[in-house]
């Protein structure tokens, strides 16, 4: 078994066996007419509509706008979460002042704010970016705070005996010590980012991948709906891979991430 796992080609292929198997089963079932094509279209139909949308340039347009929303929202929400996490992690006065409020707001499901957000911002870009930012903020905040709190006190003490003062202590000891936890928050936030974007794009929008799906529903184009779902799955995987890459880059000192 271990010998099999150490084969590099097999190691790269193994994670994709299950998704490909799923598509094969889908292809067989729908081609044999076991499932109605109105409910589940043929895989090749999905592929054709992918080609058509790609050639017309519409797909790229919608993907680009969705990416833009996700990215800007993530940057704003993640940035605020990170800064709040640092402030509250480093100052107990700030935590006393802010944490209760943050915990109350955190427990409001941010998607429940959609009606209000639509009233505030309309169905333009702001509403989507706002929702993504709110969704991303809390996992980043909580994990940053937890990361800073769990930095080994012995290391901080060592740092102060060895001449590190507040700024250098932060950069050399506190931040690297909190980083594993911050990256967990980042990874979790990436998932929330897609989820929020999908929901907000299907409810109130006139562009983006979610709009593509909602528009297709109006015309019973199940192939396009399915295409958007596959796209979401692939983008989710992409975001996760980026997060993993970051972990590998920044946590190479950690034996758990080596190799």
């Amino acid at each position, binding site marked *: 078994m271990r010998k099999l796992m150490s084969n590099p080609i097999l190691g790269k292929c193994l994670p994709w066996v299950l998704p490909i198997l799923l598509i094969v089963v889908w292809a067989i079932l729908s081609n044999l007419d076991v499932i109605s094509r109105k409910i589940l279209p043929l895989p090749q139909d999905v592929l054709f509509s992918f080609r058509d949308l790609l050639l017309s340039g519409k797909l790229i347009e919608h993907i680009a706008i969705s990416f833009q929303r996700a990215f800007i929202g993530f940057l704003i929400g993640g940035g605020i979460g990170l800064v709040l996490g640092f402030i509250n992690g480093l100052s107990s006065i700030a935590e006393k002042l802010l944490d209760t409020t943050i915990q109350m707001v955190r427990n409001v499901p941010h998607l429940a704010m959609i009606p209000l957000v639509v009233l505030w911002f309309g169905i333009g870009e702001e509403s989507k970016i706002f929702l993504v930012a709110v969704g991303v903020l809390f996992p980043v905040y909580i994990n940053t705070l937890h990361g800073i709190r769990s930095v080994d006190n012995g290391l901080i003490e060592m740092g*102060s005996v060895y001449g590190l003062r507040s700024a250098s202590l932060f950069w050399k000891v506190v931040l690297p010590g909190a980083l594993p936890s911050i990256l967990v928050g980042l990874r979790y936030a990436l998932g929330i980012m897609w989820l929020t974007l999908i929901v907000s794009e299907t409810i109130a929008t006139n562009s983006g991948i979610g709009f593509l799906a909602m528009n297709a529903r109006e015309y019973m184009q199940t192939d396009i709906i399915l295409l958007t779902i596959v796209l979401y799955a692939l983008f989710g995987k992409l975001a996760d891979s980026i997060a993993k890459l970051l972990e590998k880059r920044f946590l190479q000192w950690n034996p758990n991430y080596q190799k």
Partner: protein
Amino acid sequence: MSTLKSSTHGVHLRITQLQKSFGEQPVLRGIELDVKPGEFIAIIGRSGCGKSTLLRVIAGLEPSTSGDIRINDHPVDQVHAETRMMFQDARLLPWNKVIDNVAIGLRKEDRHKAEAALDQVGLGARANEWPSVLSGGQKQRVALARALASQPKLLLLDEPLGALDALTRIEMQQLIESLWQQQPFTTVLITHDVEEAVVLADRVVLIEEGRIAMDRTVPFSRPRQRGNAEVAAFIDHILKRVMGITEVESRHEAEDLPYPLKKGS
């Protein structure tokens, strides 16, 4: 004591009437200690006697409740720039390579000092490895190199060898002794191990219930042979004193006087 001497050798450490309490609980009850520049003293005592607290107060990590600690006649109120401390655990930063751990707190242009210190403890070849791949003894050697890289005038050792196996411990003791002989920083070693105290220190100080109960100069020349009968007898004598199995009269004296035992007995 001239200032020139203090800059080339270790510092002069003087502690007078030092008291430290945690809440209502007194831990140190009037410590009097004078450590000459370049002197190596060992502080022994049972756990909970306050010896680690004393070291932390000297390091400036804990404020004293009352009394006075002076390094070269300057009162200690925070972490002193020329003091370095080794802890029981190595406390290496796991996200820094070995060499960067040693160079912590050094200026960029002083990096060669870190390399030299790492060579001194025999780990120059491991400079670019992560601390996680080192053994416990190697980690403590890196911690020692880190302490020495900035050429401290006062080295505080808080049971740094307590967690090591017997062979590694003897190796480390010899290493510490030879490095101290090369650059005689003032050293305060906290230890449970009476043999370690006698082998390494110029003076052995016993703390009991927050007071100095015994202060004895070790009369043997270096390097000290563990197997030597006189050394063994001396160790045994101090061990008995620590355990409280000494003769009734000397025990009685010990409670009142800081220097209860005759030298070389």
